[in-house]
């Protein structure tokens, strides 16, 4: 069935997405897949997910709105349809999410013709995986404090420094990276590069261990790494502006080159309710407990509110400020995920003590892990404290906090 207000072209494309997904939905793997792409660690997980993304790309559900000369579908307003259908189909998530949602839109907006032609097709097809080198030990919330120096050397740049919290670096061919090219200006002293990091002389990728005890992201060390000037993105000194493009997409305030698949919000909530019906509290199913019901319904309302806020953001007459709703997305989704997991852990009661691997752990021990992992979302992409500063300053016009 077509969605209301689909154009005839969109409706036809939606039909294509649905029938293709119905026919090509992959069998679940024999091994465990983590909750999201940024936690993918093993090669068998990577191979399974990369080959899935490649198939989805070939079916035309990724990069739909990107020009065909850069490997895209050359359509208009098809990506949102594809994303919806991928989400609905209950298929695996896309692996190259940093590429699709951050690198691709940044390169499309700021890259040279050669860069777009070289970088975008293998990004969309998942032949090359991407990671992001923004944070450093001394540059987290204060991102513009990035120190990793890039020094010009003829037609090349010599890069040093230390990047942290780098998801997918262990599988990545490329890193989008901001470096310091001048110490005279904080913001205007940054430059944006595309850096090859696989098998590159001077690059060391080391796994970091998360609070869950799992690996999941990395630190990347650069020692006199030579990068040709042709891999600089946009002008010298404009790195902050380019990084803002990346962050706009990272924070979900704009649509990237493809997304969807994995567990949706409804599915998580359904699992929480199912858990509450199974677990006992005071001798009765936890779901019968008024406090538990109230908490779960609050989460249900917040989840629906988030979904409808995304819908309202596209109706200009019902928005007061163009960035007021989009800039809330990151805060809302990350806190919702955290609170759903926190609620599940409470519902589990004594069983929340069990780590995955204990055969008596409910849902395979996923909820305590999801709860711990959820802090990744509230911290990453600019902590929610920084997001609230941005909302207060840019949308409400309050004085800039130091």
């Amino acid at each position, binding site marked *: 069935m077509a*969605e209301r207000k689909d154009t005839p072209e969109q409706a036809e494309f939606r039909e294509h997405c649905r029938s293709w997904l119905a026919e090509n939905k992959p069998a679940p793997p024999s091994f465990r897949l983590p909750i999201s792409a940024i936690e993918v660690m093993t090669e068998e997980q990577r191979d399974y997910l990369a080959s899935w993304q490649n198939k989805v790309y070939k079916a035309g559900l990724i990069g739909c709105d990107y020009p065909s000369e850069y490997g895209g579908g050359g359509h208009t307003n098809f990506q949102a349809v594809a994303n919806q259908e991928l989400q609905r189909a209950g298929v695996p998530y896309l692996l190259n999410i940093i590429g699709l949602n951050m690198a691709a839109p940044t390169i499309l907006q700021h890259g040279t013709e050669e860069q777009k032609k070289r970088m975008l097709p293998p990004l969309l097809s998942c032949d090359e995986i991407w990671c992001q080198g923004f944070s450093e030990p001394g540059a987290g919330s204060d991102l513009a404090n990035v120190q990793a120096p890039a020094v010009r050397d003829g037609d090349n740049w010599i890069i040093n420094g230390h990047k942290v919290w780098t998801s997918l670096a262990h599988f990545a061919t490329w890193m989008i990276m901001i470096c310091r090219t001048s110490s005279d200006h904080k913001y205007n002293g940054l430059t944006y590069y595309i850096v090859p990091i696989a098998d590159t002389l001077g690059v060391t990728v080391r796994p970091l261990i998360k609070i869950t005890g799992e690996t999941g992201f990395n630190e990347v060390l650069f020692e006199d790494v030579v990068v040709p000037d042709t891999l600089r993105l946009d002008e010298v000194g404009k790195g902050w502006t380019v990084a803002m493009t990346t962050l706009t997409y990272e924070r979900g305030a704009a649509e990237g080159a493809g997304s969807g698949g994995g567990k949706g919000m409804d599915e998580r909530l359904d699992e929480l309710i199912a858990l509450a019906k199974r677990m006992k509290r005071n001798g009765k199913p936890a779901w019968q407990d008024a406090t538990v019901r109230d908490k779960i319904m609050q989460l249900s*309302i917040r989840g629906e*509110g988030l979904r409808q806020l995304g*819908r309202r953001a596209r109706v200009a007459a019902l928005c007061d400020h163009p960035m007021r709703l989009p800039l809330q997305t990151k805060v809302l989704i990350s806190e919702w995920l955290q609170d759903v997991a926190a609620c599940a852990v409470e519902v589990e009661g004594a069983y929340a003590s069990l780590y995955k691997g204990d055969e008596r752990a409910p849902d395979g021990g996923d909820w305590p892990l999801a709860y711990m992992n959820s802090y990744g979302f509230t911290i990453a992409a600019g902590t929610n404290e920084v997001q*609230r*500063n941005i909302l*207060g300053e840019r949308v*409400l016009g*309050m004085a800039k906090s130091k």
Partner: protein
Amino acid sequence: MAQPKNFGFDEEAQMVRDSARKFLRDNAGIESLRKLVAVDHVEAYESTTQPNYYDEKLWQQIVELGWTTLAVPEQIGGAGMSMVTLAALAEEVGSVALPSPLTSTLLATTVLREADGPGAKTALEAIVSGGPATLAITDESGSWDAADSGVAAKAQGSGATLNGTAYFVQDARKAASFVVSATADGGTALYVVAADAPGVTILPDRIVDLTRDQARVVFQDVEVAAGAVVAAAGKGEAAISRATPAMLTIVAADICGAAEWQLQTTNEYAQIRTQFDHPIGFFQAVKHPIVNMMIDIDRARSLVYTAACAIDTEPERAQWYARMAKSAASDAAAFCSGRSVQLHGGIGFTWECDVHIYFKRQKHNQMYLGDGSYQRARLAELADQAAA
């Protein structure tokens, strides 16, 4: 059935909203509101009978603009507007905290249009000709359950005799007629009763909110003719239940409008009030709660439009979304009210500062028709029904 992407907020809805916004901005700003309801705290709270503050001239203009007929079906002479239009209007009304029987009349209308007795049509026609109406459907315990009533109806010829008391009747002293629920043989019935009918006594409550009046309405041997039957015995509860999503949505929309005023007013203050050499909005302890007000409001507003759109296009989902909207709006009302006073500091705690007027209206609307946790308990029941 899927909802339209724009919530059905079409050009007509936008025209109604924008003209309402302009009219209210020109005629009912904070200055006039303060002069109307908050000049004298002794008069407001300690008069023998609490004053019934509202601007009758402004009300007549509102009637002439046709706002009271927007929810009345076209075949009875109304404008038959979409629910999303009404929600947008209610938001504007809330944003100026308008003291008027408009909300009560809209709520009564939503019940009347769900009923099929001869009195329903008569009452709607009376609304079209300018008479404000209100619901008298709540019992002494303050129950929001459509089956509960403090009034009993005894069959009398083809009509009935009413005895008992309706409690927490909104804008009772402004209304020309009451839509009364009563327990009759065969279940809940609804009647329309003129405010000045013999045997009707209005006993004003003393209330906190300065932007409305509230009363007990006593019915002593009040005789209602067959033509005043809005819903026959056994049909009243269902009519109220069918109207409940619209009632919740209108009140939630009013809350959103008022909460936006609280947000903007508190934000302005945070930008002009200086302490420790900075405007207080510079400090995150002030900035972040103001941002959280905005987040709460935007959640509630998004759900209000969703609920309104569901009433218009997918009634089977209307109750679900409307209870979500009222829950989110009630919580936003509580949070925004608390922060609006707290973040104004010492001045915010005084009668002189306007935030108390909105604070009181919001606390009233927060509980009216059920607060956040009440709605969530009903939602959990709906989830159980859906799963069964």
